[in-house]
């Protein structure tokens, strides 16, 4: 047996299925996390504007969005609970061996979640029940705990990618320092900032895409314009910043996880003045059919066109991640991220230079695409870092194969989970279609008056 576990090691034929099951649960949960972090800020901004200016449109928007917010949060609570179940159900040897090192982060995240849940209840059910000021104030903890909760989870992920705060003596984990492991870890900061910005890009473009559809269908009411502008502007200011933060993240990976960097590019041989290939396919130690940009990898990773970058062949074969998955995910994220940043710059340019919103329908068609593109880029980004971490669950310490459960029936569980999530997705789609035609009332006594699409 390789590695260290507190429990007897097992032979699991369905390791890949277990990983896919975890990835599926994660992919369902993570866009909801984005809404949990960014959406409260946007809702609070609307309410604050309404209180400041007396704008009815902003107030209506805040009310409607808060109903969407609580529905997304409710699904986020359960999909998040599933992830905590899977920590034990799929990876008991990981949790059993290292729970004492990383678990603290999740415990604190639990409290964050708690405060968030409490104040979401007060905020959403407090419309017209609390005074306007107190109602606005009751929303602020939601925005704060959305950040602290994800900070804790990312602290754990940073630790998995860059483990510290414990020693291994005779195959046992000793000298555990959980606070040091999680919070003195320099690997988490770029991940956290990258994710926080991503939440505004995802929530912003996803919301903006809905209203861009309404606009393209000819609804140019002031309600739709305001509802489009606020999330679109939030995403537009975050997208260019994300490019810089992404560069920082890549340089940190280059320094700490050279294997991952080599996999991102598909760099087979150690190369001086290494290029970047756009597109193409990695096999036999090189990228085929890619468009090479000479020296770009060296410039990006080390700020030196002649820097030497370690290739995949310089690492033992049993520590290499699946190169093409990582590479494709990375290129998807970067490509979509740059495209969204370009769209954002166009928008900000028109806004500042001309003092108005863009008029071309092509701009709004691009915004409609940016909604799903942001979600795809988000998931691709997590695939990059998490598949790029393979074959390790705790980088360089414990292999994923040593963490997996020995339980039989993983394919059955996987199939059930796929069906359940597919059913939920279909139900959500169905109800959103119904809602688009028949929006819910804004106040208990009120019949819907104006056409608004959510």
């Amino acid at each position, binding site marked *: 047996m390789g590695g260290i576990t*507190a429990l007897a090691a097992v032979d699991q034929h369905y390791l890949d299925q277990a990983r896919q099951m975890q990835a599926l649960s994660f992919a369902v949960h993570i866009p909801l996390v984005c809404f949990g972090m960014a959406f409260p800020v946007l809702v609070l901004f609307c309410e604050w504007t309404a209180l400041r200016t007396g704008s009815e449109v902003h107030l209506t928007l805040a009310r409607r969005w808060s*109903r969407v917010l609580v529905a997304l949060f409710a699904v986020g609570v359960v999909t998040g609970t599933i992830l905590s*179940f899977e920590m034990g*159900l799929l990876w008991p040897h990981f949790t059993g061996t290292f729970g004492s090192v990383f678990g603290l982060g999740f415990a604190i995240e639990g409290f964050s979640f708690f405060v968030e849940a*409490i*104040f979401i209840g007060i905020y959403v059910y407090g419309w017209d*029940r609390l005074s306007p000021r107190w109602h606005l104030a009751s929303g602020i903890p939601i925005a704060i705990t959305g950040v602290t909760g994800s900070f804790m989870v990312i602290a754990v992920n940073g630790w998995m990618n860059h483990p510290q705060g414990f020693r291994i003596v005779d195959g046992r984990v000793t000298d555990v320092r959980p606070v040091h492991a999680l919070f003195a870890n320099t690997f988490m900061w770029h991940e956290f900032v990258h994710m926080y910005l991503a939440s505004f890009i995802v929530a912003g473009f996803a919301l903006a895409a809905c209203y861009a559809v309404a606009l393209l269908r000819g609804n140019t009411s002031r309600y739709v314009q305001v509802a489009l*502008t606020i999330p679109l*502007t939030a995403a537009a200011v975050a997208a260019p910043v994300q490019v810089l933060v992404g560069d920082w993240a890549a340089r940190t990976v280059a320094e700490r996880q050279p294997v991952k960097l080599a996999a991102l590019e598909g760099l087979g041989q150690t190369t001086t003045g290494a290029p970047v290939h756009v597109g193409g396919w990695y096999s036999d130690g090189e990228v085929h059919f890619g468009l090479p940009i000479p020296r770009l990898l060296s410039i990006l990773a080390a700020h030196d066109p002649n820097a030497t970058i370690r290739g995949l062949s310089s690492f033992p074969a049993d520590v290499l991640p699946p190169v093409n998955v990582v590479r494709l995910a990375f290129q998807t994220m970067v490509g979509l991220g740059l495209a969204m940043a370009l769209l954002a710059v166009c928008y900000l340019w028109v806004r500042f230079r001309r003092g108005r919103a863009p008029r071309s329908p092509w701009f709004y068609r691009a915004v409609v695409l940016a909604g799903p593109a942001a979600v795809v880029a988000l998931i691709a980004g997590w695939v990059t870092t998490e598949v790029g971490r393979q074959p390790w669950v705790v980088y360089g310490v414990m292999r994923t194969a040593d963490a997996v459960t020995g339980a039989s029936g993983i394919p059955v569980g996987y199939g059930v989970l796929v069906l359940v999530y597919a059913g939920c997705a279909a139900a959500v789609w169905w109800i959103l279609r119904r809602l688009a035609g028949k929006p819910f009332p804004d106040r208990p006594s009120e019949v819907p008056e104006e056409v608004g699409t959510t």
Partner: protein
Amino acid sequence: MTFLQLLPLLFVLAGLILYTVLAGADLGTGAWQLSTRDHGLRSRVYDSIGPVWEANHVWLIFVLTVLWTAYPSVFAAVCITLVVPLFLAAVGLILRGTAYALHGASNGPDDHREIDAVFGLSSVFTPFALGAVVGGIASGRVPPGGGGDQWTSWLNPTSILVGVLAVVLGAYLAAVQLAADAVRIGDDVAAAAFRRRALASGVLAGAVAVGGLVVVHADAPRLFHGLTHGAGLACVIVSVLLGLLALGLVWRRRLDPARFAAGAAVAAIVAGWAVAQRPDVLPGLTVAEAAAPTSTLVAVVVAVVAGGIIVFPSLGLLFGLVLGGRLDRPRPAEPAAIPAGRRVRAGLLGRVALACFVAGAGLTVFGPGPALLAVGIVLVLAAAPLGFLAALPAVPEESR
């Protein structure tokens, strides 16, 4: 065993009790959702759990995270052996949460009966699966190193008993709570309907609990011994007395105190299980052997205490607002109160944002050393909210 090694387990137990009482009542409402076609009653079910249900369910996350941090091997062993019921409970939670969220986006009960059906069925199914997990642990079917039977560990008399008990107790708590809420908002029809349900389910819950002792005697003698001697027996007696008191209060239509008595009776049963199982967490595994290193335990205790200082007043505020009826009725509209601040010119703000971005970009990409990199990151991050405020058009007069 030191007190520090025991303390996080007491937190887990407290969390489990709160989950059983609060989320149990929450899940229990689903059974009543299934029991009636009456629009008004079904509507009461959703309204009554609305503001609190997310908070109720976070207790489970609390239990899981503290358990895997402070007693990682126990968590792993439970998950390895009881993988099937835990997975089924997870599926139940997904279905219920999604159904509830969909209901929130629909126009009330009767709009989508399918949603209500999924909500109700998963509300019954989930506590059964979780109860079966507890039954498996309580009857000593989870070996500490993993490797217990994947089926008999939860398809056994004790597990089925605890599963049924979890469903019935939850339904009872829910009925008491729904009746009390209906009284508070002055819905006499619903109050009478839920009071009848509370009396029936209360009698049933008591019968299952007492009859269950026979099952436990045959299937899990160690647990039976724990429940019929010493502190375990005391918990059982307290639970029986509180349960009778709660039923009496429901009968006398004193529903508000009844909900506390019923909750306390359920809490006493869970505590009784924990006491009966002492000193082992799992068969042959003591608390001292299962506990994480001291540094982790200290960190967990500090985190729980600090978190509790924030969470409990917040929870008090939430339940105070709910039980005081503050979230039931709209208050008269008030004019907006926050005066407009002095507006900074958008053009100036935009230039400041651009300057932050450019300077930050330079430092982020080319800044030597981590300190300048950090300054650069802070600057580019500051550019985002500044740019947001600068780019948004002013709220025009006509919309005021």
